[in-house]
Structures are given as structure tokens and as C-alpha cells.
């Protein structure tokens, strides 16, 4: 049972925009921090936000291991101990496909609160420090549980589900 080689990723959390607490007040920068999870047990967090400018900024780099079969990483914006917004980032957006190894991707994602409503945008950059094979988890075709829905075709794409009741 060989252990598949995993890669490390460097995520720099740059800033967030338009984050509200309780849908009304802009979140206080100095209480905000961001947590990144590559799987339910692996997470890293930034420090508290800087007072720079009108929207919170961290510009903090987090280095984490990315399990080979990870398809998503989760980014959570927290204030004190509460999660006020999350975003799910498909690994295929920054690794694999036509992007070369060690490419620095600048990405931004919509944050949504616990009820699925829009709550701000998160800006970050990601770089994968790969070892060898050059194929990323997103291009591995299987290794997950569940029944394939459509016949024999494996489409291999990433789908992000949003609860229908809260669509916009």
C-alpha cells in the first residue's frame, strides 16, 4: 500500500470585499480571519485582518499539504468564532489542465453565508509546489464513493452545487 505523493500548496489570502455580519453591518476588520481547509481535518488560518483601507486585507501566505485526491479546498471567513461566509474552490481552477507547474494563479470567489446568500468576495492567490508526476488530483479519474449517475460516461468535471432555494 504505497502512500500517494501529495503536493503542497501556497495560498496567499489577499483580501475580502463586501463582507457583512448579520446581513447589515460591514464586518469589523480586526475580528476577521480566514481559515483554509483542504479536507475536514486539515486547516490553517490567517491572523486577524489589517486596518488597511476600507476592506479587510491579510496578504498572508498559508502553506498546506494538498491530498492527492482532493477536489476542493474550502475557504471560510470567520469573525470571533462564527463562520460568516464560505467559498469552495475547485482544485482544477489552479492546478492541472493547461496551467504549468508552479504557476501562480490569482483567483477570486463569491462567498456565501450559511443560508446560501451572497456575502462578499474573497481574493487570493494559489501556487502548487508539485513533486514529480505533474498530474493533479482533479485529473485523476476515480477514487471517490458513490454511483455514477450517467451510464458509463465519466465526465470528470467539477460541479459546484448551490441550494436551489437560495439561487440569487
Amino acid at each position, binding site marked *: 500500500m504505497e502512500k500517494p505523493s501529495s503536493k503542497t500548496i501556497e495560498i496567499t489570502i489577499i483580501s475580502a470585499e463586501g463582507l457583512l455580519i448579520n446581513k447589515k453591518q460591514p464586518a469589523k476588520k480586526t475580528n476577521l480571519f480566514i481559515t483554509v481547509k483542504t479536507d475536514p481535518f486539515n486547516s490553517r488560518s490567517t491572523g486577524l485582518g489589517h486596518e488597511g*483601507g476600507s476592506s479587510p486585507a491579510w496578504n498572508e501566505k498559508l502553506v498546506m499539504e494538498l491530498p492527492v485526491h482532493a477536489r476542493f479546498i474550502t475557504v471560510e471567513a470567520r469573525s470571533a468564532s462564527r463562520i460568516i461566509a464560505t467559498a469552495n474552490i475547485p482544485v482544477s481552477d489552479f492546478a492541472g489542465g*493547461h496551467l504549468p507547474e508552479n504557476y501562480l494563479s490569482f483567483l477570486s470567489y*463569491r462567498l456565501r453565508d450559511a443560508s446560501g446568500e451572497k456575502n462578499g468576495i474573497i481574493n487570493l492567490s494559489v501556487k502548487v509546489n508539485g513533486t514529480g508526476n505533474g498530474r493533479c488530483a482533479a485529473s485523476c479519474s476515480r477514487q471517490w464513493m458513490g454511483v455514477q449517475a450517467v451510464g458509463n460516461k465519466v465526465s470528470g468535471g467539477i460541479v459546484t452545487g448551490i441550494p436551489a432555494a437560495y439561487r440569487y
Partner: protein
Amino acid sequence: MGNFCSDVKGGQQAVGGGNQAIGGGGGGYSAGHNEAVDFFFRAKGEHALFTPMELSLSATKLRDRDIMSKSDPMAVVYMKKRDGKLEELGRTEVIMNNLDPTWIQKINVTYQFEIVQPLIFHVYDVDTKYHNLPVKTLDLKDQDFLGEASCVVSEIVTKRNRSLTLNLHNRDGRGLKNLGTLTVHAEETVASRNAVEITFRCSALVNKDLFSKSDPFLRISRTVETGGSIPICKTEVVNNNLNPIWKPVCLTMQQFVSKENPLVIECFDFNTSGNHQLIGKLQKSVAELETLYQSKAGANLISPSSGFRRREKVLKSEIFVDRLVEKQLYSFLDYISSGFELSFMVAVDFTASNGDPRNPTSLHYIDPSGRLNAYQQAILEVGEVIQFYDSDRHFPAWGFGGRTPNGSVSHCFNLNGSPSDFEVEGVEGIMAAYRSAIHNFALAGPTLFGQVINKAADIAGHSLSSHHAKYYILLIITDGVVSDLQETINSVVRASDLPLSILIVGVGNADFKEMEILDADNGDRLESSSGRIATRDIVQFVPMREVHVGQMSVVQALLEELPSQFLSYVRGRDIKPLNVPPASS
């Protein structure tokens, strides 16, 4: 304070910092080099839409026209306008007795990326009797013509050393005698590459609003010799805060001129009425701000004397410099002349709404008399400019919405009809492929850009691995609104972090209002259906019909945003021009 914008969101934006788009925000104003417009923007502290350059001229092996001594040469530079007329840009001084002159007098020319700028150089031998007169007053008809040379401004600036040597020939090209050579060297007028990025913070600001706290912003001005001051930039507005920290502002040397030049820093309370109230001000040069930064001390703001009070009052409010960093802001030209290549790709709309190509009213009608249709015009105009910057002249060309010979509709087929190879050679190759494609592919529909954008993004993405310094430009020419706007948005968002710009020309009479969402000039970032948000604005959309009403050409409107989109990519990644050594601290 009447010169602030009246739209609130726009009025609250930071203006004039050098780090922002060279192009003053893109989309909307100005057409070409208009001095009145330029002065207006410079007075407001915003960058002009072009790069002012100086040409230095020298010549070798000029013909000897004088009997007793050598020629006394002078050079005159003209710009050829669109209607063929020559406009004189300037003259050098007269150098005595010299067949290999190096003139000192520089000629100013404004470099505009998005138009072809043909220059004509004439060298004259000035007769002795005119030597003491100002060069401007000389009538060229009375002088002896020594030779003529011509080139295009972009030819000079794309050379690594920005120098171009041309052979002088007779007017109208008659005669092949060797009349000597002329060397033209171009340089950007001011050393605007040096810039300073400053993060300002204030404490204990006075409250000017009734029911809430002040909404402060800073305006920075430069004092001029005549005694007044010219605003060079303003920060964004921080709402409801008496201890604000603003986003860093970037001032270029062109704006502050020298580090000892005193700058006036004013702190205002923003009011939506436009009547902003002054909270306090301060006068400091960049050098003094550096000292403030190093000592981490604050400087007290001053409230100027008013009707009630003869003297100025020193306030408790203080301003701090949290960060001050010197930067090198390379311009678009710096990158291009260092070897960065632009790569051109075209996609043509083959949907049925264009009309049957055999019908003279169709947008795809190929006129046997040679008059170009809207598609041909757009390809030719944009291609002509970009091909100066694309050295290999291999252009991918696709069509979308057309029916292939096997009967199926394709949204990304090769324009040259080849099943595997999508490249054509030169702009003439695109034109030829287009003409034959009109015969070989039937128009169908619907209008979908997603596939061509994805293909262009793949090509741009692949180029990253080979480390070539290339930036891709996809030109999409369409007559209608996209059928699936979200699909297009998704493709654009996916491509927004790549070295790619998408220029969309709308031809015909359709209402293109919906397409302007793609342009994102209003500041709303595009959001894909998977929740990803565009990293940067990579689309420029221009409806051809609207453009022809004004003075600006289609290509000027389309390429207006290109330098700033290119710079947003390279600066965001801290990519420097190729010939710059790696940064030393």
C-alpha cells in the same frame, strides 16, 4: 470644489495614482490626441491616453550640396494623417558644415499604441543666408532638399534599443542614388518610470457630518511656478471613520516632478452633494514624507485661516505615513521594446442574422468592386496595428455559428477550412481565409462565444509553460448579442487570470446593450455560475456603429484598454520587461 465627479460611487474612487490604468480608466472618453482634452486630464491629475516621446535624430553620409563647404543640414519630421496630409511635428536645429550630423533638438511625438502613425523625415541643406533666423521661420521651398525617409512610430519603439536607421531617398522614390542614412531614436519624455507608493493614515479627524462621522479622503496636489497647485491624485473615500487608513497611492515622478517639490495634502469630508468640506491640510515634499515614514511620527494637519480667524490653526488631527516604497513602473512600451510579443487571434461570426452573403445587404457581402465589408474592415484595421507586435505572423483564425460541410453547426471551426491547423499567415492570410470560408461554410447559429474563448484561453495557457513572453489578443467580430450570456461569462472568468485580452466588435444594427456587461467598465466584476469571480477585466466591447459617429476609429476604441489590461497582468505578477536585471533590494 466643483471639479469632483457627481456620481457618488465614481466620486469616491481613488483617482490619478500612477499604478492605475494608463488610459485613465478606459472606455468612454476621448479620441486620439486632442490637446485640449489632454490638458484637461492633466490638470485633473489623470494620465493622458498616450505616451509622449522625444525623437533624437542623426544622419550619416549626407550629400554635399555646397560648393565651398559641406552641407548645413536640418531635419523636419512630419506625421501622415489619415487623409494623407502631412502635419509637421517639428524641426531640428541647423548644424553647420557637417555631413554626419547629430542633432540636439528633439522632436516630440505622441505615441499612440492603437493607431498606425506614419512618420516622414525630410533633410534639408539650409543656405547660409538663413542661418541666423529661427528654424521655424524657414521656408522649406527655399532650401536644398537632401533626402527623405519614412517609417511608422511602432517600428521604432519595438526595437530593443529604440533606434531605427533608414536610408534616405529622393522624394517619390525616384532615383536610387545613395543619399545617406537617417537614424531615429525614441525615448519617453519624462522619467516617469520612477514612482513612489505611499500608505497614508490619519488620526483624530474632526467631525464635519451631523449624524455620523466624517467620510474622509485625501487630495494631493503639486505646487506650480505660477503659484497655484495642480491636483495629481486623490484617495478613495473611507466612510464614517475619524481614523482612516487609505489604500496605497502611487505617485509617479512625472506627477511630483522631484522629491523636494512641495506637495499639498488636503483632507476633505466627502459629501454626495459635491460640496466637500476641508478638514485640514498639510504641505510636505516626498522627501519629507520619507522622513515621516522612517521616524513613524505624525504631522499635525492645519486648518487654513478663514473669515473668523486670521491665522491658521494647528489641529490635533495628525497624518502618518505607514508605508513608503519606491517602485519602478514600467510602461507598456518598456515591455514591448524588451521583446514581449503580442499574439493576434480572430473569430468571425457566421450566424444567419448576418444575411445571405450573396445579397448586397448582407454584412458578409464580398463586394467585387473591392469595397470592404464591416468584417473585413475590422480585421484589417486591428490586424494592421497588431501585426507590428506579432513577430511570427501566424494568426489563429476561427469562425463560429457556421455549418460545416458535413452538416453540423460548429462554434469553433478553422477559418482556413483545414481540419487540424487553425493558423493563417499574416493579415492577408486572414482576409483570404475569410473570403473562402464565406463560400464554404453556410451561415447558421446561434451566437455563442464560449468555445472560441476557451480555445484562445487554452492557447494562452499553454504558452505559459514555454516561458515565452507572449500576450494574446482575441478579436471577436459579431453582428448580434450572445444567446447564452452566462456561458460567455463563464469562459471569460476562466480566462481572466491568463495573458489574454478579448476585443469584441459589434457590427450591424443590433442593440448591443447586453454585451456591455461583458466589458465590466462599471466596476462589476463578472461572476461565473460556479462562483468564481473574474480576476481582472479582460474584455473590451465596441459597437462599430457608435464609433463611426465620432472621430475615433474602431481600432482606437478597441485598443484603448489594451495597454492597461496588459499592464494589469504583468504588474499584478511583478513581471518586469525582459532586459531588466532581477530586482536587487
